[in-house]
């Protein structure tokens, strides 16, 4: 099955109020074409799950500037002053999450786990409202899985079945997010026929992927 769709078909699926998770770390490994199309479409009241909010000019930061998020879950917002301003002004609900915890919450959702125990955040504000458990004398927080309606992920090369290959540090949150949403849309720099990617080199199995948008197409 060829999973390719057009950019328009991809963003048509995303409605006001959708929960989206977007790959990338300071916009490196972010599906830029999908972000630009969401800016053009003007969908509102989205919930974002992303490592950071990029910059006002790059990555998901563009959608912050256009005020398309109602709620944001991120580990770091310091590179986009507009996110901080909206948070302080009470315009956008921002939840700050430790980076390893966010990565694992997404992984847990995609991998069928009910949550996990981590020592990260014990004794800090992150602990508030969470179950604290002691296991073999060590204190942990119970962190729950985090899933989304849509995962918008980037890949360097995809085959038409959605098997994905990465380059450099673009991988970051993309592989876990691909598994953790009802619908996963990949933006690939290049799409190749099945068989062109060596099965040994695949980072994300196509089983996690629903649709592919080719960057140049």
């Amino acid at each position: 099955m060829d999973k390719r769709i057009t950019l328009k078909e991809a963003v048509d699926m995303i409605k006001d109020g959708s929960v989206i998770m977007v790959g990338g770390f300071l916009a490196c490994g972010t599906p830029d074409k999908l972000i630009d199309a969401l800016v053009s479409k003007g969908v509102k009241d989205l919930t974002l799950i992303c490592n950071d909010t990029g910059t006002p000019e790059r990555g998901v930061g563009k959608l912050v500037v256009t005020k398309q998020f109602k709620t944001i879950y991120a580990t770091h917002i310091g590179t986009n002053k507009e996110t901080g301003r909206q948070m302080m002004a009470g315009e956008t609900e921002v939840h700050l999450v430790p980076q390893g915890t966010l990565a694992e919450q997404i992984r847990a959702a995609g991998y069928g786990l009910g949550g996990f125990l981590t020592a990260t955040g014990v004794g800090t504000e992150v602990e508030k409202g969470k179950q604290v458990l002691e296991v073999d004398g060590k204190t942990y927080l119970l962190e729950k899985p985090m899933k989304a309606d849509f995962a918008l992920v980037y890949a360097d090369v995809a085959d038409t079945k959605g098997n994905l290959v990465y380059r450099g540090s673009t991988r970051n949150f993309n592989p876990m997010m691909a598994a953790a949403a009802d619908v996963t849309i990949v933006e690939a720099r290049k799409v190749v026929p099945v068989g062109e990617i060596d099965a040994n080199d695949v980072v994300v199995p196509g089983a996690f992927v629903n649709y592919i948008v080719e960057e140049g197409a």
Partner: protein
Amino acid sequence: MMDKQQTQEFIAKRVAQELKDGNVVNLGIGLPTLVANFIPADKSVDFQSENGFIGLGSVPAEGKEDMNIVNAGGSCVTILPGGVFFDSATSFGIIRGGHVDVTVLGALQVAENGDIANYMIPGKMVPGMGGAMDLLSGAKKVIVAMEHTAKGNPKLLKKCNLPLTAVKAVDMIITEMGVIEVTPEGFTLVERNPEYTVEQIQEATEATLHVAPNLKEMVV
């Protein structure tokens, strides 16, 4: 007196001495990043970048940048031979799982029991914790590299009053004044920059400074 840049380089050089051959090390943004410039040629240290690789190399020459290889601050860097790329779940498995030997971070405040605050000033600066909470809870050794005071105000306190990044996490603090270890007794001064007396260092420190019996001179 050292100027700001000299002070930062002095601290970074002393931190570099703490790193051992074969260590996997994560450097925070700002002053800690400078540490990479002072690793002696006879030591091999692997730098971990929490956005997804080990083998962080230097900044590429102009025109040679690869936009697919950036550090945790978003700047273009390089990867060294023997390096490896991975996803964020693996990256934090490496961090939480105790596979990072040393993490070097800055701080706003450190308390004598090892508590650290370095990610927010309520109502003023709320950038988020990024990977700092995981690094503090998972790395085998935590070194705080920072200037001893902030505009003359002590940062080494009896108790932090800013929101904590981690509880009882800091092992060592390296400043332009000296090297301080966090011990069951509290802060212990183990090395002193000869430019300062013990009294001057105590004056710049809110908590009681215990002086190690074998107090050494800080040499970089």
